[in-house]
């Protein structure tokens, strides 16, 4: 047997998972798409328009900091990919041979993906700052009018992206089929969620709408300005965050049951 010093099992699992993520091409591709979207959105908001004048007000930097919240769909897809790639390429066999306690294996994936999403959120905020600060500085505007609000916006963006990454991990573990999980999630966010919200509102169930995933994510980031969407009053950030956490818990539970209960063939 080996004579090298061994680190703790938890540390080894995390380090191995970090290398898995670092060498996962599809993850970086989706991250790049999300980054590009945020860059373009920020440029569109910050750069002077042809009619003259800035698109945003005096606290434009602060508002730009909230734009990465729109990357929820990308971090959720990343979370889905982190799990489903193991089934798509049959590497789940190696994963569960190395870590036969499958709950541990999935938990480590969730933790590392959460860390990745937090880092990604901070990167996106940094990029929006890198774009918006020089523009506002050139206009001699107040860069950050309310530091406390800026901090809250940062926190909200980090939390919402982190929670959606975990939703992705849970969904990926529950569905296992990569294409079905990604299409299902995108289909829900892009179409089903809005249609369902409209149907619920039309049938006098508007009170339920703020609890839907998209609306809860908007509620979590109400510091960005929107208190209602489509006439529906959103939840406050903390309750909205708890609602998203409940989605994480439910999907995580289903994902764990599937991961533990299903054979790896």
């Amino acid at each position, binding site marked *: *047997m080996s004579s090298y010093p061994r680190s703790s099992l938890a540390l080894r*699992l995390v380090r*191995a998972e970090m290398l898995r993520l670092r060498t*996962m*091409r599809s993850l970086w591709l989706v991250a790049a798409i999300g980054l590009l979207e945020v860059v373009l959105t920020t440029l569109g908001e910050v750069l002077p328009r042809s009619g003259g004048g800035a698109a945003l007000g005096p606290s434009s930097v602060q508002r730009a900091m909230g734009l990465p919240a729109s990357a929820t769909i990308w971090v959720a897809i990343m979370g889905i990919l982190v799990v489903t790639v193991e089934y798509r390429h*049959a590497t789940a066999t190696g994963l569960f041979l190395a870590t036969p306690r499958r709950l541990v294996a999935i938990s480590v994936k969730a933790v590392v993906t959460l860390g990745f999403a937090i880092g990604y959120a901070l990167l996106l905020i940094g990029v929006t700052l890198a774009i918006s600060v020089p523009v506002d500085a050139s206009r001699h505007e107040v860069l950050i009018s309310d530091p406390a609000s800026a901090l809250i916006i940062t926190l909200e963006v980090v939390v919402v992206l982190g929670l959606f990454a975990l939703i992705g991990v849970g969904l990926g573990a529950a569905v296992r089929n990569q294409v079905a999980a990604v299409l299902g999630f995108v289909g829900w966010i892009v179409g089903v969620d809005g249609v369902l919200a409209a149907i619920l509102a039309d049938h006098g169930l508007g009170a339920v709408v703020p609890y839907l995933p998209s609306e809860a994510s908007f509620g979590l980031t109400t510091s960005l300005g929107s208190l209602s969407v489509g006439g529906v009053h959103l939840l406050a950030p903390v309750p909205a965050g708890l609602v998203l956490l409940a989605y994480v818990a439910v999907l995580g539970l289903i994902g764990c049951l599937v991961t533990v209960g299903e*054979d790896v063939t």
Partner: protein
Amino acid sequence: MPAGGLIECQGLTKQFGSVRAVDGLSFRAEPGRVTGFLGPNGSGKTTTLRMILGLVRPTTGLATIGGARYQDLREPLRQVGAVLDTAGFYPPRSARDHLAIGARLLGMPESAADAALAWVGLEGQAKRKVGGFSLGMRQRLAMASALLASPDVLLLDEPANGLDPAGVHWLRGFLRSFAATGRTVLLSSHVLAEMAQTVDEVVVIHRGRLVAQAPLAGLLAMATQGVRVRSPEASRLVGLLSGAGVSSRWITPDTIIVESVGSEWLGGVMADQRIPVFEMVAVTPSLEEVFLKLTGSAGE
């Protein structure tokens, strides 16, 4: 011998819907021996190996390695190396990164990945994406991954698939030397001629059930078909044997196979009758012939 290497299956059964893939299977793979695990396609070999490794949950029965279920082993990768399918690689990942992940899991320095690559002859392919590897290269990488921590037990499913003759020769030598150090090898393969040169013990299953478990030499001896004799007086010998109630059949004009007798008895008869002998050989069937006979799967 390390007692930790015994693989034991007791009444292992797996039901997939209406299909019983494995049916009350019991066998042992002992430390210090290479045990061949044989069966036709769909006989339940891969399902059995996956049950031993905790990837497939048995409907009933128990599979243990060193007395414990795989999922209860403290450090499974240190104790058991497995090669199950060569598709289990993420194509865009480099060979080195694949092994480096294993090294990190084991708490080994990543330089262990380079050593393992060199050991299987892939040192020049370290940075190449696995998606571009041939089947044989993937097999070598899978072997490197399984052996990274120098485990006591190896479970291999078709490890010679795609290997070139030099690779097959290397694998045979390696498995023999691995078992010679008191460690355990359970090997599933369709290449029966190769198995015959590698294994000590054979476990044969068919339709999920155990058909035979025996040392290879014993299994072949049990199935001995008779004695082949070449003699210029073969006709006289056939007449004598027929009179004694011993059946024989012609192979060539001067060669016969005498069935169901030993060469000692036959040699004595021929000496007594002064029948000249040009050649006398005990006819032992190949492992393939024994396998087909045991499983009745010649036409499958």
